[in-house]
Structure formats: structure tokens, C-alpha cells
């Protein structure tokens, strides 16, 4: 791709050369190089944030540098150009080209917006020299701008378009706020205290950052493990031969896509995903003739699954969804049964579709089965969402 090559060339040669030339002309090369080194290290070192992503530390460096240099925008721009290029190179060498390239657009865009906003506000109100509060609000405004920019850029350049809508990627990008604003605060602590306290500022800035980093990292790891566990528990009925192989994963995948199509938030999407995985866990109990006697209904499965899930109080909302998956979306004479959550219908439709496909039906026929149930079983609005997902994925005949 020529545009990608161009970007790499710019980052590798153009930006640092321009930065150094300007710095030499302005005679502040040493300052620029020190800040650039911090940028490079900050860009290459990441802080774990939600959903396994990595948040580079450069916002902290930018905030600290803006405060210490009193918003000297040329210095900031030069050091950013040199530093982020160097950081890109470090990641490229240490990991791979892709992770280096993935981080870059959001970082360069965010930093540019940050410098523009921060120095812009500062030049509008230049008389606040030395006033901590005024400076703090300037970097806060600029950081929010950076934050929004990186979420937008992330949504635009996301490679997940197939599965998730841009809106969801944007919202997921916004969910990273704790990491971003902890970096802002750490940079601000350093920038505010450095002029008066010298090296002690480093201690003040790094200890809270370290604590937040450890906590966020543990949280991210636990979230990932939890997700893994749910996925695995969802596969137990498959291992026992009670549902078709891969059923849980496919239902979850379909449910998440439909939830995103229907505009669910991040939390609600996660609940739908969990519910889809654990929807059939109750079959494990019902497989036993001693328990189920002469067979069991969908209602039994839903209730047993729900009871097992509800053992974890944290998953009660998921259990509530699963508990309603056996119900139709309305009863005779109603437009819609308000007691049946939309999430339960999403899982029900996704599961019914996958079971039809597992029985060897074509996608068109499977959709027809769902449409035939539109009287009471499957909400047409949700079946339509499924159809849109299938169309976007290019499934034949839909």
C-alpha cells in the first residue's frame, strides 16, 4: 500500500529530521532531545488498559513537558516529532511492524491536537503565568481533546469493521478513560511540582502512577481470564455432546454482532456475550435421566442454566437474560412482552439460527424458519438485525 509506505517514510525520516533542524535553528536542541527521549520511552512503553489494549505513556510526557516548558509549542512539536518516530522504531524492532503501525495514527493525531489546543488556549490567556490552576485546566482541556481524537482515529482505522460497527469501536475506545486520565494526572503532578521541587517531583508522579498501573493491569488480566472461563464453561455442553460443536462460540459471535447492530452499549454487549456462551450450561444437569426423567423443555434448560449462572452474584444480570431466553417476545393480544429483555431475544434468535444451520440448513432457509416464528417466538426487529449482520458479512442469499 503506497499510503502506508509514505507514512512509514515520513515517520522514519521526515519527522525526526524536520524536528532536529528546527531545534538546531532555534538553538534548543538539548531540551528537545531530552523531551524526545521521554516521548520515545513513553510511546514504546505501554500501560495495560481494558480489553487487552495498550495505552502508550506519551500523554503523561506531553502534559509534563507542556507544563515545564510553559507551553512552548515549537519545542513540544519538535520533540514529539523526534520522540514518537523513535518510539515507533523501538516497537518495530522489539515487536513487529504491525503493532508499531497500529499505535501510530492515534498517537500522532492525538499529540498534534493536544499541542494545538493547549498552546492555543495558553496564547489566548497568556497572563496566567505560574498560576497552577489555570495551567492545569489548559492541559486538562487539551488531554480531553487528545482522548477524543484517539478514540475517533481508532474507530476510523479499526480493522474490526466486519464484526463491529464504528460506533462500538469508538465507545470501546472511550472506555479506556482511566488509563488515559491517570497518565494525564501523573504528567500534571510532575509538571506542576518540578519547578519548585526538582527531582522529588519524579517520586510524586511515579508512585500513584505505579499503583494505578498495577491495579489496572490486574483488572485487565482478571477480566480476560474471566472471559476465557465463560467461553470454556460454555463449551462444556459441547464436550458432553449435548450441543453441536462450536455452538456456543458461534451464538456468542452472532449475538455480539446483533447487539452492536441494535446499538447496545459496552456493558450490555458483554452481558449478551456471556449469556450466549452460558445459555446451554443447564443441559449438563438435564442430560441425566435421573434429573430430567422423560425429557425436558427449553424452559427447563433456561431455568437450570440461569440457576447455575446466578451462583455468581456478579453475573445476576446475565442469569436474568438467560432465564427469559425460552420465552416468546409477546403473548397473544400483545404488541410486545415488556418483561422479556431484548438481550434474551438476541440470544434466542442467534441460538435458533445456529441450530438450524447446524442441522444442515442453508442460511436463507434458516432465516425463513425464524420468520415463520415471527408471530410469537422471534421478534421481527431482531431477526431483521440478524439479516443485516449476515448481509454485511456477505452470507450468500440473505
Amino acid at each position, binding site marked *: 500500500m503506497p499510503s502506508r509506505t509514505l507514512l512509514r517514510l515520513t515517520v522514519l525520516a521526515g519527522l525526526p529530521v524536520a524536528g532536529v533542524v528546527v531545534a538546531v535553528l532555534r538553538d534548543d536542541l538539548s531540551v528537545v532531545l531530552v523531551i524526545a527521549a521521554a516521548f520515545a520511552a513513553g510511546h514504546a512503553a505501554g500501560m495495560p488498559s481494558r480489553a487487552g489494549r495498550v495505552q502508550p505513556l506519551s500523554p503523561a510526557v506531553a502534559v509534563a513537558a507542556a507544563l515545564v516548558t510553559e507551553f512552548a509549542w515549537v519545542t513540544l512539536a519538535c520533540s514529539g516529532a523526534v520522540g514518537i518516530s523513535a518510539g515507533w522504531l523501538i516497537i518495530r524492532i522489539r515487536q513487529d511492524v504491525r503493532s508499531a503501525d497500529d499505535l501510530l495514527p492515534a498517537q500522532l493525531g492525538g499529540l498534534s491536537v493536544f499541542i494545538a489546543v493547549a498552546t492555543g488556549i495558553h496564547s489566548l490567556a497568556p497572563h496566567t503565568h505560574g498560576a497552577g490552576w489555570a495551567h492545569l485546566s489548559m492541559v486538562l482541556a487539551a488531554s480531553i481533546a487528545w482522548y477524543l481524537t484517539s478514540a475517533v482515529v481508532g474507530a476510523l482505522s479499526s480493522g474490526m469493521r466486519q464484526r463491529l460497527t464504528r460506533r462500538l469501536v469508538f465507545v470501546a475506545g472511550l472506555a479506556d478513560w482511566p488509563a488515559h*486520565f491517570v497518565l494525564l494526572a501523573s504528567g500534571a503532578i510532575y509538571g506542576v511540582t518540578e519547578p519548585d521541587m526538582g527531582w522529588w517531583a519524579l517520586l510524586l508522579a511515579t508512585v500513584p502512577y505505579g499503583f494505578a498501573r498495577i491495579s489496572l493491569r490486574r483488572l485487565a488480566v482478571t477480566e480476560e481470564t474471566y472471559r476465557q472461563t465463560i467461553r470454556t464453561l460454555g463449551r462444556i455442553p459441547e464436550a458432553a455432546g449435548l450441543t453441536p460443536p462450536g455452538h456456543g462460540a458461534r451464538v456468542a459471535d452472532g449475538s455480539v454482532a446483533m447487539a452492536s447492530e441494535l446499538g447496545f452499549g459496552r456493558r450490555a454487549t458483554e452481558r449478551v456475550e456471556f449469556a450466549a456462551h452460558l445459555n446451554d450450561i443447564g443441559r449438563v*444437569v438435564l442430560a441425566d435421566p435421573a434429573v430430567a426423567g422423560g425429557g425436558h423443555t427449553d424452559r427447563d434448560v433456561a431455568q437450570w442454566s440461569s440457576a447455575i449462572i446466578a451462583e455468581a452474584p456478579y453475573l445476576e444480570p446475565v442469569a436474568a437474560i438467560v432465564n427469559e431466553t425460552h420465552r416468546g417476545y409477546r403473548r397473544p393480544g400483545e404488541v410486545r412482552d415488556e418483561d422479556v429483555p431484548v438481550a434474551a431475544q438476541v440470544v434466542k434468535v442467534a441460538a435458533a439460527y445456529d441450530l438450524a444451520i447446524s442441522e444442515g440448513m442453508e442460511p436463507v432457509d434458516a432465516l425463513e424458519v425464524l420468520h415463520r416464528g415471527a408471530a410469537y417466538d422471534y421478534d421481527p426487529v431482531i431477526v431483521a438485525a440478524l439479516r443485516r449482520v449476515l448481509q454485511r458479512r456477505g452470507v450468500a442469499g440473505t
Partner: protein
Amino acid sequence: MLGVGFAGAGVCALVGLFLVQAVPEPLWLWALFAVFFVALDYSAVEVNDRLFVSSAVMVAFAGAVVFGRESAVLAAVLMVVPSILHPQDLKRRQWALALANFGQFVVSMTLAVTVFSLFLPEGDITRGDLPLIIAGAAVAAIVYDWLSFRIVAIATRVLYPEREVRPWTQLLPNHLALSVLAVLGAVLGVAYLIVGAVILPIGVFSFGVGQVAFASYAKLREAHEATIRGVVKAVEALDPYTRGHSERVAYFIDIAAAELDLAPERVQRLRWAALIHGMGRVAVPPALLRAESRLTADENARVERHMRVVEELLADVQFLAPMVEIVAGSRTLAERPDAALEERLFAAADRFDTLTTARSYRAAVTQAEAFDELRQRADEFGSDLVEALIGAITGRGEVYGSPDEASAAEVERLVRERAMRA
């Protein structure tokens, strides 16, 4: 009783402080610090029974610096007072504990900050005073830590005499954290005096995020374990013969581990191995689970194959992988003389419970017979582990299995007769 005594000591300390120290000025600033303190204290994370890691200490030390030597102790200790209304205590209606906690908190804070205030300079604080102040905070943190754990240990012993006071085996990280917090608080206080109030919101924010993230991590970890436990319980309920089996195995492991003085995290891992080792049964056809005669070698292999499918699945979960390894390893002990202690202890506990409970194809054996078998297989399980398990059971005066051989024989005869009728 004890709570009242502790609280009395706390009140005495407070009254004494009012006599010797000046009231912190300005009052609104103190109130602000107190709000931060209470917010951090109430959101503290419980590490294990009643042991909280609270970053509130940081605010107390910052306050001590900000309000100066004359009112440092009073300023810090007054922030502690609202801790008597700790939501956790109120929710659990532990009035005595709330009082004891209040007294403990006030007394240790008084002594610690008194030590700290000796390191504070008389007049205005400058950057040059920092090394001395930091040293003071570190020393004071040690005093605080030592004192509160002493007092908590005494309180636990009085309130729960039946409980062994051993919960604080791994306190070093907490000691360290507390010292870092105290030092950080002191430096923050100095920064407040030199730089101004602008330091407060950013300092509190970045710490707050850390604390909230830590609390949600602790909550999520609990939820994760509860989820697995829920499925385990459901699977367990399937088979009347093995109901409660995993929990009993976990119990035997627990008491044997106490005898062997195993590290808590190893016991924890073993306990989980015990909980999940029956999960494989979901994949075993019910006919095999309920077989009325002893399984043939071929059938046994089939059962094991089914179980392994589920175990391999569970091993995909990072958290469960080491536990699955213990369970899998415990099956091949005879071939591996160098098997890990975990695998051998798990196998011994599992075997003991299997022997002492009835199966669909045989009755339970007596405890003496079970002990005999364990001793015979001491090469496999390790004689020290076998003796630890036996010692733990007999030491507690507990009896498992059939009460006597006669009834075991009777059950055996009935089972045979039923088989013949069928």
C-alpha cells in the same frame, strides 16, 4: 467488652491530644482532608479478614505536614474518628468490632504521628527539609504498622478464641505498601505547602483511580471464582454417590496441608484442583457413572477418556491450568516417582474419600481399612503425606467410612443379592 475497652483507650488519647495540641487551622482545609481520608478509608480493599489496605494513611500524613507540628497529631487523629461508622461494620452489625477498630485506629495513629511530628521542622517547611521528613514518615509507618497489627492480633484472639490467629502470614507486601504510602503522603504535604492546593485534585485523582481499579479487580476475582464454583456444584449434584466428594477432598487436603505447613497459595491451588476434578463427569455417559458392578479396564479407560475431554477444555483457562495439571498428574503417580507434592497429596486425599464413601458397585470401607490401603501405597503417595493425612484425621478425632466391618459386609451382601436378582 473488649470493644468498649479499646474505644475507651481511643477516647482517652483524643482527650489528651485536645489538651496538648492546637486545633488544626483553617478548619475548612482540615475538613477537606478528612473527606478525602474517609473516602479512601471506606473504599479500602479487604485483603483478608479485617485486614484492610487503605491508602487513607497517605492523607493522614499529608495532613500532618500541612497543619504543622503544633496540630499535626490532632489533625491526623481526628480524621480517624469517622472510621467508627465504617459501612462494612454497620452492614454486618459488628458493633464490638467497630468500637475495637476505632480504638485501635486512634491509638496507633496517635503514636505514629507523634513520632512523625518529631521529624517536622519548627518553622516553614522548605525543599531542604524533605529528606528528614521522608525518614520520619518511614519510621512512623513502621510504628503504625507494628502497633496496629499487634492490637488487631490481640483483638482477634479475644473475639474469636476458636480461630487460629494465623491470617497474616504474608504481610511484608502490606508493610511495604504502607511505608510507601506514608512517605508519599508526607511528600504530598510538602508539595502542598510549596506548590499550592493545585496538587490535591490531581494527586487524589490518580490515587483514586488506582484504588477503584483495585477494588473492582478484587470484586471481579471473587465473581470469577463464584462462577466456576457454581458450575462445579451443579455437576456435583448429578451423581448421588459423589455428592460432596470434591468438598470433602478439599477438606482432607486442607487439614493435611495444615499438618505439613504448606504455603497458603499452594493450599489454595490444591483446593481448586479438588473442586474441579469431578467436572469431567459431565461428559461420561450416565450408564457408566451408575454401573452396578466394578468397571472393566476397558470401561475405565472410556470413563477416563471422557473426563479428559473436559479437563483439556478447562486447561484452556489460564487460571485453571495448574489445577488441571495436578488432577491429571495424580493419575499417573505409579509411573513417576518424582511426582510433585501437590499431585501426591491430592491423590491421597481423593483416594481416601473414595474408599470411605459408598459407590454404586460397592460399600464404603472402614477408616482403618482405608488407612491400611494408604499406607500400603505409601511409595506412590509419599509416606510423609500419608502420615500427615492420617495424623490430621485421627488428631481431630474424626471417623469416616463404615462404622464397623460387620455393616460393611452386610452392605456388600445386599449389593450382591440385588445384582443376582437383576
